[in-house]
């Protein structure tokens, strides 16, 4: 759900930049702390951002519904790198998608960082940690994280659209409308994201346990 350039009114586009910048700054501070110990970690982050970018181009079939979706990859990145680093990685990927594809935009970059990178990462990460605490298995927790991470992204995006486009109507009504009108594309997307996140994480855990220990998280 990349909000395109020009979609949001000037004041709101600017306003979304503030919280987005705060989270990106948080990501920079945290990553810098890690870089102080190992400067080469930035190569790893660059590769991860490229991974997130490429994964967002992968078609994932959704069983039963009969569509194909493209995962965002942010919940996965958040589980593997931690949510703040994932925000940074997501912000990089979003800027490149805007420049390379005209997916998203410059004035809407802030809004998109907030919905895709911040909401997707934190909802995904939070769900994962919580689900693990509750005793869910790796796959189930990751699947739930992907699913809810995506829905969170979608909820924030539709709120942003509602605030920007509600006209004379009340915001909740428009929010609900936006939420419902993109529902047919977003639910399969969230399912695909969940399946993808779970599948990849289980794959990594089985094949390369060392990676799960090497990156931010130890499950």
């Amino acid at each position, binding site marked *: 759900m990349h909000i*395109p*350039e*020009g*979609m949001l009114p*000037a004041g709101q*586009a600017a306003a979304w930049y503030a919280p987005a910048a705060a989270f*990106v700054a948080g990501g920079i501070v945290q*990553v810098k702390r890690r870089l102080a110990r*190992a*400067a*080469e*970690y*930035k*190569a*790893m*982050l*660059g*590769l991860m*951002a*490229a*991974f997130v*970018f*490429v*994964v967002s*181009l*992968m078609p*994932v*079939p959704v*069983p039963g519904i*009969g569509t194909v979706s493209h995962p965002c990859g942010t919940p*996965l990145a958040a589980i*593997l790198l931690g949510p703040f680093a994932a925000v*940074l990685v997501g*912000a*990089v990927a979003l*800027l490149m998608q805007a*420049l*390379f*594809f*005209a*997916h998203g*935009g*410059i*004035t809407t970059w802030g809004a998109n960082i907030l919905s895709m990178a911040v909401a997707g990462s934190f909802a995904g990460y939070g769900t994962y940690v919580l689900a693990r605490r509750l005793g869910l298995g790796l796959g189930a927790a990751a699947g739930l994280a992907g699913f809810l991470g995506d829905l969170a992204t979608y909820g924030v995006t539709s709120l942003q*659209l509602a605030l920007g*486009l509600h*006209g*004379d109507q009340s915001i909740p*009504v*428009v929010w609900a409308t*936006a939420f419902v*009108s*993109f529902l047919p594309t977003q639910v399969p997307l969230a399912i695909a994201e969940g399946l993808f996140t779970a*599948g*990849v994480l289980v*794959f*990594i855990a089985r*094949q390369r346990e060392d990676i799960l220990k*090497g*990156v931010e998280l130890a499950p």
Partner: protein
Amino acid sequence: MAGASRRHDDIAWGGGLLTRIDPRVKIAGTVLLLAVNLYLSSWAFSAALAVAMLLLMTLGHVPYRRQLLAVAFPAGFTIFAVASQALFSGEEVIASLGPVAIHWDGLLAGLVIALRILGGALVVVVLGVSTPMNHLALALRWFRVPLLFVELLQLTYRYLFDIYAEFTRMREAQRVRLGWSNRRAGLESSRLLGGALFVRVYDRGLRAGEAMRCRGSGPVVAGSLGRPGRIDLVSVALLAEFLLIFMNI
């Protein structure tokens, strides 16, 4: 990325007329035009912006058919913008169906947003097709964008094409063993592909990190921007002219 962006980016490296404009001028101009596009929110300005960007790409010999396709991407959003305005704002009802009414003035407001999207997206496209990543990085540093962020942009760009090529080859290897011939196989293949790609990206990250440490782990932004030249003066003058015309009417 496959077709569109590769071309997008190839054009930027092509070194055409637009590439030769100082990236600082292009970034500042882009931000300014986009801000005015939102601030004025007028159909005339947005339409003129779209025309101007098409003209610019014509002058710069940018083959922009593909780029127009890229701009068509937000079509869903554009339709939503027009529809939501027509339904949610305005007074003058032109058609109604029970509680749902379409308003004439709302429709016009929606069309203004659609034009704003078109004009704005084309400005971003022009920046994309005219600015190689290293120019962009240097200019962003000049604008005091945090070093770490710019470095990440550079590193990501460096690896993007390799990883994409790897992704493509692995996916082809799955396809020939019929890994994408039905939905269930496709789901299983996407899991394997994502996992295997991640493992390779991770290992490559370790190797790249080691190589980086061997050479001193310095910043990954290097080089310098040339001094602005005549082409930059002309660009700034044209930009000012364009804005002045529209500020006055």
